[in-house]
């Protein structure tokens, strides 16, 4: 398929600081791409470059097959939604929606048509005559999405649009954005630091760190087969347990523990040496489910965090902290000994030096 957005060797420096490092990215038409990373990783900078609000030091940006590197933001065929909504406070909702169209000299009847359509999709018709100050947070964000919608563009850019909302509203609007994408089929690029948003919304996730994309893959691939230790620890909550381990003679040795390598899903040829062994808390099982597990051991409970639907247990394994999840109905207290195990095919291993997946 023809790429909707193609980014070629994009570099941006603030003086000596490299914010984006020769970044390549292509996004097929209709894809929902999430840029995910902790603050300062360059994800918002990349989005602003695509929007034309920041000038790159080097590299090219193509949108819909057109080189827009030197184009004004308004002429790139994009709509953008900001974290702080960025609604014009002195204008009514309707004026907010039509401001861009008037600037683009769109005929009046077409403006009315587009506003009516966007208002219908987002269910903001009753709000059209109000000022932004008279709207709730969720309504404001809906209007901000509407402002991108009326522009009738192929590419939507979202800059942490839900971060200012409370948890309940965030979950609601998340679903709405996903539905919007399914109905419109536009290309969407969505910046967030919230991994739940990323996992639920994305067709593909780009995990960024230090101005580079670490991994660009589907949510399930990022979750199950993280390419390096950073991605593995970044995705998943609570995050993956890591242990120093040694590979050799067909075995994985975690200090006193050792188990056979045979079930592990190898990603490289490496079969020996120092490694990081990682297992997600939710992949650790106990009780009846233990039957199929080849790797089993006893741990002593240090601390228990009950969360209702599940219970998070802190223990120690091979001298390192070890977290795992148990069913919420399990009665367990500090000092208990629990027999737990995991399926090795769900574990991850990373080279101790390069931290790459093996």
């Amino acid at each position: 398929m023809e790429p909707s957005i193609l980014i070629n060797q994009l570099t941006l420096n603030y003086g000596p600081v490299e914010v984006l490092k020769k970044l390549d990215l292509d996004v097929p038409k209709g894809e929902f791409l999430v840029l995910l990373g902790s603050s300062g990783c360059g994800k918002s900078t990349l989005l602003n470059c695509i929007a034309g609000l920041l000038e790159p030091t080097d590299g090219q940006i193509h949108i819909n097959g057109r080189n827009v590197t030197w184009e004004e933001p308004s002429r790139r065929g994009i709509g953008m939604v900001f974290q702080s909504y960025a609604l014009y406070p002195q204008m009514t909702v309707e004026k907010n929606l039509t401001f861009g169209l008037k600037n683009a000299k769109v005929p009046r009847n077409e403006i009315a048509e587009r506003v009516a359509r966007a208002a219908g999709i987002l269910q903001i018709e009753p709000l059209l005559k109000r000022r932004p100050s008279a709207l709730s947070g969720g309504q404001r964000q809906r209007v901000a999405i509407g402002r991108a919608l009326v522009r009738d563009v192929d590419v939507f850019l979202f800059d942490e649009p839900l971060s200012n909302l409370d948890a309940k509203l965030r979950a609601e609007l998340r679903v709405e954005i996903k539905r919007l994408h399914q109905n419109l089929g536009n290309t969407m690029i969505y910046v967030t630091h919230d991994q739940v948003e990323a996992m639920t919304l994305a067709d593909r996730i780009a995990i960024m760190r230090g101005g580079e994309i670490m991994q660009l893959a589907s949510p399930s691939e990022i979750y199950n087969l993280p390419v390096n230790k950073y991605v593995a620890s970044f995705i998943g909550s609570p995050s993956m347990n890591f242990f120093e381990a040694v590979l050799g003679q067909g075995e994985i040795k975690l200090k006193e523990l050792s188990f056979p390598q045979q079930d592990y899903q190898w990603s490289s040829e490496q079969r020996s040496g120092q490694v990081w062994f990682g297992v997600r808390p939710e992949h650790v099982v106990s009780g009846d489910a233990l039957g199929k597990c080849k790797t089993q051991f006893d741990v002593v409970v240090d601390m228990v965090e009950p969360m209702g639907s599940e219970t998070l247990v802190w223990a120690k394994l091979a001298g390192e902290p070890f977290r795992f999840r148990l069913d919420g109905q399990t009665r367990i207290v500090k000092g208990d000994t629990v027999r737990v195990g995991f399926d090795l095919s769900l574990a991850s291993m990373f080279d101790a030096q390069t931290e790459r997946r093996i």
Partner: protein
Amino acid sequence: MIGPRGMKPVRRLSPRNVIIYGTLTILALYYLLPLYVMVVTSLKGMPEIRMGNIFAPPVELTFEPWIQAWAHTCTGLSCDGLSRGFFNSVKITIPSVIVSIAVASVNGYALANWRFKGADIFFTILIIGAFIPYQVMIYPMVILLREMGLYGSLGGLVLVHTVFGMPILTLLFRNYFSSLPEELFKAARVDGAGFWSIYFNIMLPMSLPIFVVAIILQVTGIWNDFLFGVIFTRPENYPMTVQLNNIVNSVQGVKEYNVNMAATVLTGLVPLAIYFASGKLFVRGIAAGAVKG
């Protein structure tokens, strides 16, 4: 169930309150006393003033000195009172305030939102301008105005006020526009608005408070100006402050203290009215201009 419960009782006559309010009252009296003397003196006739009781309220209330000061008192050869100076000051202040604020607000907007090449150097130069004493620039300014053919005219003085108001006003507007959310500006750019469209449609409607502050600063500053008024204009164009000085300091004939006092209060009335009308906004303006860098 005994002991303290609920709201803590307030002691109005605590030593702390006595000291605070006592000091404030004394200081307020100290500052208000001269104003009192001025107003009282301006309402007395000359015989009463010669008796020397400057704090006594007028026995025979008269408004004659006020009329005299406004319409009949003499400076030099003309005897049409302070009114001429008042209207000169109005003619100087209104265009100076409008032009300086219009230019400075665009300056501040450009500096805050459009990071053009050399913006920092431009801003630094402007700020240094705020620290150079005016006296240093008077002579070059006189020559400049002479060469432009504006020396002595009201237009020349308007230009001088606009130029000298620029550093502090630009700083004021830049700080204000910088404090507005940057995403608004970005959203407007995505919406295809240009430099002027963003300024007029987005920034201006949000900036009423800072414009009020700037107007207050400029009106009071320009109205109270004496130095530029006396240097850059001819006698027929003298602003009110200069004319007041000429009335009060004239050495011929009898010193009419009541007329002088009335003339002084009249001159101070415009800034005074502005201070009273604006109140909090003026304090905010001073803080915005002085504290933020």
